[in-house]
């Protein structure tokens, strides 16, 4: 690759290099803008800023979970357990609050369970060389089973801290945000910084690009891989807390299939599923695209909810084909 760049005319490579890496993210951005534009042109109320804020409010937990998923997918792995861990975290906090534990302690316990499960799954994946798909699938069953083991019905949360966190409105002019959105933004910022500027982030990209060479370069492959699943567990736990803020309850069957939404958001955000290329910003755009689709369908009123699934499927297809086309170009360049 590097030698071919030396041979080729420099202006051509510099012209191609930049968009090829960021193109999927740019396409997601364009898609988001087009969809928002359609919404604004069709419905008057759509141009209200609160609509945008609501997309964040309604999808904050999904965004946090998808950010964790981005780390895992960047290493070439997959984490199917996220939806169940979200439900488990919400369930555990609800149950502990019902038993009268102080909110700070509940928060700590709830935030520890997810990463612990992620850590264990990462260890199993790394040390026993079992496929991430199977290990996280078992994790998914485990967490979901634990939910119903705690309670088979929904537990309401009446704790003062939780309700105030849920009902607090942060006013910006005429519009408002929730505490959850602020937490989401903070998580996204920390994750973006970690991936772009820290050693861990570079290791994640290196392992996703080629685990073999990462190992030969002396990078801590095992540690990074375990860390990635722990991060995903932590993000799911935060997502679970946000969800419990949002719904003020813990239900055993909540967030079923959330892992699919998270994976879809990551893919639509332009992250390569084989790992090694992608951005947190892309994932944010991916989640927003999903959110705007739902908002559009809600605004329309005549379309049924299943159209959401069909549209998401179509978008997945379009983005994967796009990635594939970009992949072809990359291949033909490198073999030249």
């Amino acid at each position, binding site marked *: 690759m590097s030698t071919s760049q030396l041979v080729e005319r420099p202006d051509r490579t510099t012209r191609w290099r930049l968009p090829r890496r960021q193109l999927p993210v740019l396409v997601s951005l364009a898609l988001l803008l087009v969809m928002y534009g359609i919404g604004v042109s069709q419905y008057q109320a759509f141009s209200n800023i609160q609509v945008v804020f609501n997309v964040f409010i309604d999808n904050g937990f999904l965004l946090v979970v998808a950010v964790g998923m981005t780390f895992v997918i960047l290493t070439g792995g*997959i984490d199917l357990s996220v939806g169940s861990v979200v439900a488990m975290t919400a369930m555990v906090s609800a149950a502990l609050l019902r038993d009268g534990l102080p909110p700070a302690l509940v928060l700590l316990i709830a935030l520890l369970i997810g990463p612990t499960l992620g850590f264990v799954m990462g260890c*199993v994946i790394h*040390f*026993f*060389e*079992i*496929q991430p*798909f*199977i*290990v996280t*699938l*078992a*994790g*998914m*069953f*485990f967490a*979901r*089973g*634990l*939910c*119903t*083991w705690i309670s*088979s019905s929904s537990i309401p949360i009446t704790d003062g801290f939780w309700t105030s966190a849920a009902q607090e409105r942060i006013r910006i002019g005429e519009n408002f945000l929730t505490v959850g959105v602020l937490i989401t933004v903070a998580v996204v910022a920390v994750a973006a910084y970690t991936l772009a500027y820290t050693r861990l982030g570079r290791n994640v990209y290196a392992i996703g690009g080629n685990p073999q060479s990462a190992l030969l370069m002396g990078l801590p492959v095992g540690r990074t891989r375990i860390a990635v699943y722990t991060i995903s567990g932590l993000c799911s736990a935060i997502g679970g807390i946000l969800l419990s803020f949002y719904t003020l309850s813990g239900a*055993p*069957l909540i967030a079923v299939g959330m892992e*699919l939404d998270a*994976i*879809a958001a990551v*893919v639509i955000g332009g992250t390569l*599923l*084989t790992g090694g290329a992608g951005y947190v910003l892309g994932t944010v755009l991916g989640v927003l695209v999903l959110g705007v689709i739902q908002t559009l369908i809600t605004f329309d009123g005549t379309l*049924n*909810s*299943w*159209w*959401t*699934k*069909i549209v*998401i*499927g*179509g978008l*997945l*297809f379009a983005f*994967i*084909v796009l990635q*594939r086309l970009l992949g072809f170009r990359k291949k033909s360049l490198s073999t030249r």
Partner: protein
Amino acid sequence: MSGWRTRLPAVTGHRLFWPVVVLVLLVAANAIYRPSFLTVEIKNGHLYGSLVDIVRLSAPLILVALGMTLVIATGGIDLSVGSVVAVSGAVACLHISRQPDQNSLGGVLVALAMAFGVSLLLGLWNGTLVAVIGIQPIIATLILMVAGRGLAQLITSGQIITINSDPYRMIGVGHVLTLPFAIVLALAVTLLVAVLTRRTALGMIVEAVGGNAEASRLAGIRARRITLLAYVVSAACAAVAGFMMTANVSSADGNAAGLWVELDAILAVVIGGTSLAGGRFYLGGTIVGALLIQTLTTSVYAMNIDPQTALLFKAMVVIAVCLVQAPAFRAKFRRRRATTGGPTAPTGEQRKEQVAA
């Protein structure tokens, strides 16, 4: 295979040893909990009993897992089977529900053919994405997994279609020659797949493609066509499973039919010793895996444990079986088994095929 001294480690080292042990333990636990569990009796010329029920209920899973085995053998994975189950059930039930006489055999056959055709198209779509466009299988089939569920709801208009058709119900709960029809059907499909893959070169070709698609293509195998075929077969199996599941309850629910069946099927395949990396497949193992999962589910129901909590047990069994089978895990405890396990596996498979045929 000469004498007991060499046979005993060959038996304990066999990839199906632990799954079968767990299966036997489960059945034994059930028998202790409820002594009537093991009784099988003939009522009105039909076979009844808990064991028969378990096999009957696992028939759809066996079918889905069979198709999944072939896909996984080519190094792929098919996440869309659950959606295909929902779509095929929805198409068949919709067509039957629109007929004036729901009991007419001809109408049911047309409905089945239509649903089967739609499923084949869905399989072709998956296969084209994977084999022709070259998308990663897990993602290619994720598309249909998400969109297919929506498609099924679109077909049923988001409602549960209830039908009242005796010929259709036959697929799920009918009897043939004292055996439940579902078991006979699953057995027939299993035999068909086994004969086609193990009595012809097809199975070896599939394994070659899964081992190294490029190398097999250079060796003269039409690797793309084989991969495509695997996804079509998987969708076909899922379609038949969809008929069984919807016939069991005489209704089609686009939302719930076949939900999570893809995960159960993948588990069944992995428990059966087929590696997700592709290149090898064991049909016998898959069937043991499917039976194991269904037995686990049924025993949890029978012991009055919340069905959702059953997932907890499932997770533990899955992780235990996978750990015991993982070469890295075995190597940590016994270094010798890793080397002896390899050569005994094919002979065990051959022996099983002879028994099956």
